[in-house]
């Protein structure tokens, strides 16, 4: 009998701690598929963040390092610069990458560190229980914006791909989503490209994945996917913001 579906080898055979309906599992799988397809598991080192994906080091079969909050790009820099032959990726959430770790993110990007960054944007701090993230939308209610995020008070959300695409060291910046099967397939392509870029020594690649947090958004998994589509995608348009391989007009 032909096998048509199986667990990627790079994905650990273990129970994940993520909430029902959370899209972290999908993105983990996509990353593992990319590692499998490129055949690089034996020389890949992943850097886990602090946030919901803090236990990511238990979910992959490649070597893993657990970094301090926001510091994954700096840790990745240390690994990659001392071992250029390794494939190094970070997996970070919005608080980790775009709040406490903004400096590390921006500078790893502008230095053109030859690493792959998988960035989960779900507009909220999940692990600590639903507080405002740097990407929380205007008007969005969270535990620390109980009256809705008011830009005059809590400031504006940050659009990471748009910001990083202005930097010379960035080879690839793309925003994808995992709300529909079609979008999941596109996300896979983008993640695979992010890893391929590293093998081709092109520089810093970031794939921002719009994700859901049904638990902290207070929605069912299905409604969360609708919420993402109706609220996040208009504010965070999908697409490729920078691609050193593509003719200029093809990127945003």
């Amino acid at each position, binding site marked *: 009998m032909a096998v048509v579906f199986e667990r990627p080898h790079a994905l650990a055979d273990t129970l994940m701690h993520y909430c029902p309906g959370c899209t972290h599992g999908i993105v983990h799988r996509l990353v593992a598929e990319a590692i499998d397809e490129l055949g690089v*598991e*034996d*020389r*890949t*080192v992943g*850097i886990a963040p602090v946030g919901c994906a*803090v*236990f990511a*080091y*238990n979910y*992959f*079969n*490649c*070597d*893993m*390092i*657990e*970094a*301090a909050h926001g*510091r994954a790009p*700096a*840790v*990745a*820099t*240390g*690994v*990659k*610069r*001392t*071992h250029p*032959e*390794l494939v190094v990726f970070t997996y970070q959430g919005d608080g980790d990458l775009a709040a406490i770790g903004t*400096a*590390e993110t*921006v*500078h790893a990007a502008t230095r053109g560190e030859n690493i792959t960054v998988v960035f989960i944007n779900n507009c909220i701090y999940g692990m600590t229980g639903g507080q405002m993230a740097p990407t929380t939308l205007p008007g969005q209610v969270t535990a620390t914006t109980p009256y809705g995020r008011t830009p005059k008070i809590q400031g504006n959300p940050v659009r990471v791909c748009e910001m990083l695409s202005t930097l010379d060291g960035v080879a690839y910046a793309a925003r994808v989503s995992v709300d529909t099967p079609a979008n999941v397939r596109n996300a896979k392509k983008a993640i695979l490209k992010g890893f391929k870029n590293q093998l081709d020594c092109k520089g810093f690649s970031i794939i921002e994945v719009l994700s859901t947090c049904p638990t902290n958004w207070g929605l069912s998994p299905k409604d969360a996917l609708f919420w993402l589509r109706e609220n996040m995608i208009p504010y965070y348009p999908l697409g490729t913001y920078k691609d050193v391989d593509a003719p200029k007009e093809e990127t945003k």
Partner: protein
Amino acid sequence: MKGNEAIAEAAINAGCLYYFGYPITPQTEISEYMAKRMPKVGGLCLQAESEIAAVNMLLGASASGTRAMTSSSSPGISLKSEGISYLVGSDLPAVVVNVQRGGPGLGGIQPSQADYYQATKAYGHGDMHLIVLAPSTVQEMATLTGEAFDLADIYRTPVIILADGAIGQMMEPVDFSERKPRELPEKTWATCGHRGARKHNIVNSLLMEPEELERSIRDRFERYRKIEENEVMCEKYMTDDADIVVVAFGIAARIAKTAAQIARSRGVKAGVLRPITLWPFPNKEISALADTAKAFLSVELSMGQMVTDVKLACECRRPVDFFGRTGGVIPAPADVAEKLCAMSRELSI
């Protein structure tokens, strides 16, 4: 050669080919020296965007099994303390240099020893110790740097070189062939790709089960016990017949030696015990001296920090006095000698 440059060259000699730093006075010579030398020896000197990033780059390098170093001065070290705690929690070897200047806050840029408490008690959050080495000559800046890398690898712990602006900026002759490297364990834990030859490695400081975390800390403290047993270093100077023993480290120890000479010329039998390891502290050596000496004097470039450890080490069997200047002021040997003579009179020694 300057003390700071001696550290840099000694690190390279010890096989450290990666340096991550951020400029700050009075340790910038380390960065500059590394920037010049590293490309010539096939290494890398990377100027990070912050002290925080630099120590985390060090963490990444160390996690993947490579010798690497970062350095800073007091305010920058405060920023690194997060990363230092993670290095400890992840059982990673690392060498961190602190060329101390005056604090708190921005403080000043002149030499200081006011980070003693921070270095020996609280370089990061959590149950932890670090090996803290205190060089007092440019030669020792070199030898102890080599030693620091070996100790870090053997005990899987960060090692701090606690220098100060004076030793960092000072020039003295230095011989790089003085030290014999030690036998080192293999880094089987390193995250450098499993290559299909082993189960994947995880470098991590997060342990959610209290019992599991406790066990890991107890294991680490077992290693600390071995360090305390085997790695204490100190120098004794004219202590055999000393009535008053000055305890001083780093630049202060040099001042103390000159002061002891002056005091002896005035009939006060003074000697100097110089801790080279500040952690582990030479408790046994000080306790032994408490049998023969009548009093102790802690001399520091601070308001008095090590003095508490001296008191603990001699278990209050002898009076322990303190003399220090702070804020970047360096005490004069004559003032320390005067203090010794005054102690001698007060205690009718």
